[in-house]
């Protein structure tokens, strides 16, 4: 999973030479082989790729937004990669509240935080029922927005979001 994410990220960044990866341990943590010493860890490798490709803005363009990007990258690792059913609800509620007045997770444009949280959330959102998607209306809106952003949704199937709301009483 993580390897496919990194491959998609490489494509999005327009990196010409695909890097060599392997995995470590039973949790399948990705390892970047090109470097010496090899780099371990999804977020570490992702940040390294972004810097390599000169797309610094993906890490945030002000000190504040850089901090927010790092916050969400950490969130991805600690909350999204190891979760139980109850955790999912908490995660979705947190995100829904956070995204109420924001279009992107950090600042006013797409950042690495949006990309990695999108990849991490995808399996969860795919399994959500329509009713739940409408309950977490901000998450759904943000998710739909990111998946339509050119270049991000490579290996993942698109999640259909209905335009006509069926359950109208939940989110007034």
């Amino acid at each position, binding site marked *: 999973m993580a390897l496919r994410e990194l491959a998609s990220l490489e494509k999005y960044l327009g990196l010409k030479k695909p890097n060599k990866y392997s995995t470590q341990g039973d949790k399948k943590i990705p390892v970047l082989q090109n470097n010496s010493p090899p780099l371990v860890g999804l977020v570490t490798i992702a940040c390294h790729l972004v810097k390599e490709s000169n797309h610094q803005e993906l890490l945030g363009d002000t000190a504040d937004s850089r901090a927010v990007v790092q916050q969400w990258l950490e969130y991805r690792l600690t909350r999204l990669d190891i979760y139980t059913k109850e955790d999912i609800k908490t995660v979705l509620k947190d995100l829904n509240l956070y995204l109420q007045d924001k279009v992107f997770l950090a600042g006013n444009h797409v950042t690495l935080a949006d990309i990695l949280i999108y990849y991490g959330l995808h399996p969860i959102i795919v399994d959500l029922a329509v009713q739940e998607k409408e309950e977490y209306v901000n998450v759904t809106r943000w998710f739909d927005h990111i998946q*339509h952003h050119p270049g991000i949704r490579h290996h993942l199937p698109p999640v259909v979001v209905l335009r006509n709301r069926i359950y109208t009483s939940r989110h007034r």
Partner: protein
Amino acid sequence: MGFGDLKSSSGLKVLNDFLLDRSYIEGFVPSQADVAVFDVLSTPPPADLCHALRWYNHIKSYHNQKSSLPGVKKPLGQYGPPGVADTTSSAPAASKDDEDDDDIDLFGSDEEEDSEATKLKEQRLAEYAAKKAKKPTLIAKSSLLLDVKPWDDETDMAKLEECVRSIEMDGLVWGQSKLVPVGYGIKKLQISCVVEDDKVGTDILEEKITAFEDHVQSMDVAAFNKI
């Protein structure tokens, strides 16, 4: 389409509702559509309309790239949920014209009476239109699937589709289309559309489509569903 009166709270509520599950007015990137609506709002929406406020702050951050955003600015009535008319008022323009008339005119008293009467009429019309715009949900709509048949297999189907899509009527929205083979190399164009029952009838639509006699041999309604 339209948001009602965007200078009033009812219009802003429609905008808020519209933006509840959308990041932008049209599509998934900021465009001239957002600029068009943003320019009408003179102040940020109130904090209880959180989605409109979110959108407003986001679009504000693009204000120095306004002219380079993609798309073409269309009149306000083209955006927003279907079924809501645009009644954003343009009253200041009307009163200015009246003042000019009064200055030049010889028969001063007659003109004044007339201008007052027209002002009253306009005010009443605006109120009526605003009332009408507040009832968006009662409009009956249907989804139609039309089969458009060409003369032979050499007819340019792309041109045919263009002709059909060029038919613009109030209350008519074209949807997806596909080409279905019928036999002997002939393909028919299956195109869907959503119509408002009061404004568009299938016979009018049929007349307009068959008017393109060079390309269209006939048209049928393949499916008709009430929405």
